[in-house]
């Protein structure tokens, strides 16, 4: 559904009605309208080694507020689990929302974004597209700010440590034609410490666009372990922007499984702003069929003694494309900063296209930085060794690949999620 970009401003009345139907605060509508004005003027973000200006990303969502004509049954995808901290959304609707009483009492907020906007507007305003992702950054972010149609808000108060991971599952409703403009906002207050896991899926085969923005903001000393398994569908064209913003001595550890089946840009960024803050980004990807997935991981060291680590491993099958860009950027003045990265791609087919592209931008002298990148095939020596112990070729290959992707899998804190990722990987590898 190609929309001429100059038509976007014509949606301003529809947006006003949409916003007021959701009882959004005034500032939210203002943000939407000013972003709407800017979409046409802004450029697409530059993603190295990818031209995607013709991708159908510009589908405007249904703004009538009417419920979807067909709805998704969430239990096709998830088990019933009482009393876990969990939010499940199908399309724009929140269908399950559970939070243990003990967490509620301590002030944890874990609810859909529009409820949060009504109940905690100031808290949301502090963080929503204010620090990590900015509406005016580029065409994608402006479009997102204007047309965001549903989302999730997670707030963890000061000094609170949560043992069990909080879980969110988002099922894109492609039984109907509608854009998926989802926003996840995670706000970790000072010295909080928790894990969050999320899963993105698609139900249905309609050709839809998705513009997803996930923001994680860590206040001083906060520590967030973020993991995700993305499994959006073959007919979904996706721009996936996850971005972290760290205050002093805080950290965000990302473990991301990029397992979509359509064309996807993964724009994973972390701004290490506060002194002594750190991020560890681990991503695995599998591309198969004829799809293209590009994972563009970008860590910017602004603060002194900040540490950024990018580690991405991927496998390509069939005629698919998988590209890893690793961008480590140390700005002038970030003394003692460290930027490390490793990107490796394993090609399992002659027709596959892979790229591992390290980019280091260093504008300060007193820093450490390093990178490693490779594109290759399964090592015949490794295969020989495994097979010489009796293991069949297909099983040996699976073991090598599992090993190759293992570091990310083991970084995910929730067993069901790990198993899910392993199963997804096995399924993709055996469907060859």
């Amino acid at each position: 559904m190609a929309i001429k970009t100059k038509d976007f401003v014509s949606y301003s009345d529809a947006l006003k009605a949409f916003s007021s139907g959701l009882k959004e605060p005034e500032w939210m509508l203002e943000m939407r309208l000013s972003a709407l004005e800017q979409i046409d003027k802004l450029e697409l973000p530059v993603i190295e080694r990818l031209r995607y200006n013709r991708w159908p990303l510009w589908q405007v969502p249904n703004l009538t507020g009417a419920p979807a004509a067909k709805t998704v049954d969430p239990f096709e995808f998830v088990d019933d689990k009482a009393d876990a901290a969990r939010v499940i959304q199908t399309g724009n609707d929140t269908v399950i929302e559970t939070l243990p009483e003990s967490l509620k009492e301590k002030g944890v907020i874990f609810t859909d974004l529009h409820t949060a906007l009504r109940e905690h507007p100031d808290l949301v305003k502090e963080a929503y597209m204010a620090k990590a992702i900015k509406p005016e950054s580029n065409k994608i972010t402006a479009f997102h700010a204007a047309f965001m149609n549903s989302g999730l808000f997670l707030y963890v108060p000061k000094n609170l440590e949560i043992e069990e991971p909080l879980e969110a599952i988002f099922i894109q409703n492609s039984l109907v034609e509608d854009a998926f403009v989802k926003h996840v906002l995670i706000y970790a207050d000072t010295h909080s410490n928790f894990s969050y896991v999320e899963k993105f899926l698609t139900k249905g085969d309609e050709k839809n666009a998705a513009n997803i923005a996930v923001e994680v903001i860590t206040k001083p000393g906060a520590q967030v372990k973020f993991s995700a398994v993305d499994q959006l569908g073959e007919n979904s064209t996706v721009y996936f922007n996850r971005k972290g913003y760290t205050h002093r001595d805080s950290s965000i550890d990302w473990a991301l499984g990029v397992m979509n089946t359509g064309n996807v840009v993964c724009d994973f960024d972390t701004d290490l702003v506060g002194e002594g803050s750190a991020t560890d980004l681990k991503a695995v990807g599998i591309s198969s069929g004829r799809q293209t997935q590009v994972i563009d991981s970008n860590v910017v060291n602004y603060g002194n003694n900040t540490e950024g680590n990018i580690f991405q491993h991927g496998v390509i099958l069939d005629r698919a494309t998988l590209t890893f860009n690793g961008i480590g950027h140390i700005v002038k003045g970030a003394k003692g900063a460290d930027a490390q990265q490793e990107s490796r791609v394993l090609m399992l087919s002659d027709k596959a296209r892979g790229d591992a592209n390290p980019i280091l931008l260093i504008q300060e002298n007193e820093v450490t930085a390093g990178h490693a990148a490779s594109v290759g095939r399964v090592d015949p020596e490794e295969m020989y060794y495994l097979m010489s112990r009796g293991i069949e070729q297909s099983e040996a290959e699976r073991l090598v690949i599992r090993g190759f992707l293992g570091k990310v899998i083991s970084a995910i804190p929730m067993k069901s999620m790990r198993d899910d990722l392993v199963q997804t990987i096995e399924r993709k590898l055996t469907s060859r």
Partner: protein
Amino acid sequence: MAVLEIKNLHVSIEDKEILKGVDLKMQTGEIHAIMGPNGTGKSTLSAAIMGHPSYEVTEGEVLLDGENVLEMEVDERARAGLFLAVQYPSEIAGITNAEFMRAAINSRREEDDKMGVMDFITKLDEKMAVLDMPEEMAERYLNEGFSGGEKKRNEILQLMMIEPTFAILDEIDSGLDIDALQVVSTGVNAMRGEGFGSLIITHYQRLLNYITPDVVHIMMDGRVVKTGGAELAKQLEAEGYKGLMEELGLDIEIEED
């Protein structure tokens, strides 16, 4: 009783002939040693038997109970009963040692007869104790970051777990100190018996003080030039390869060290 027979084996690497007609026959219950100077083709022989893709067999046969293993894939050879402990095993991150060994054992078993976790762990603990290996090595990634000695022990651990019919041990002694040598030898000696045969490749006589061979073969320039009993190894130690060559009337360039 099983029989392994190598007949007139010729092997080339990159069009250069390394093995020039090797003949050797052994059966279970026996331990054979192959000794020879560096660069003679001992590792080539073991790799060709196991089916390493870089080695091209141009002539000859390797028969396991009459079946030509050269027509089998590498994994089929292993499941048929062959095992090769190599000098430089691969390091594979992401696969634990234990997981790998269990996959190897279960590759030999029927779907309804797979070895369960408990039985596996019991057996693993027992064998690791024999080899004086700390428990945590089971959960480490396959050979990753192992020292030379740890890798050798790990090869013998796999041997003891898999229990093949014939094991070829390629210079399992190189780089080991006396203590490690004793431990590794204890492992191999524990395997000794009716249903097991081993072909031990070594450059030095030292290992044969701990594992007494039934038969010793001397290999030079791609051929077995002399076969005898355990005393042949002693003779070699006393006279060196040069002495033996004089006795046999051979004129071969060797690297003596």
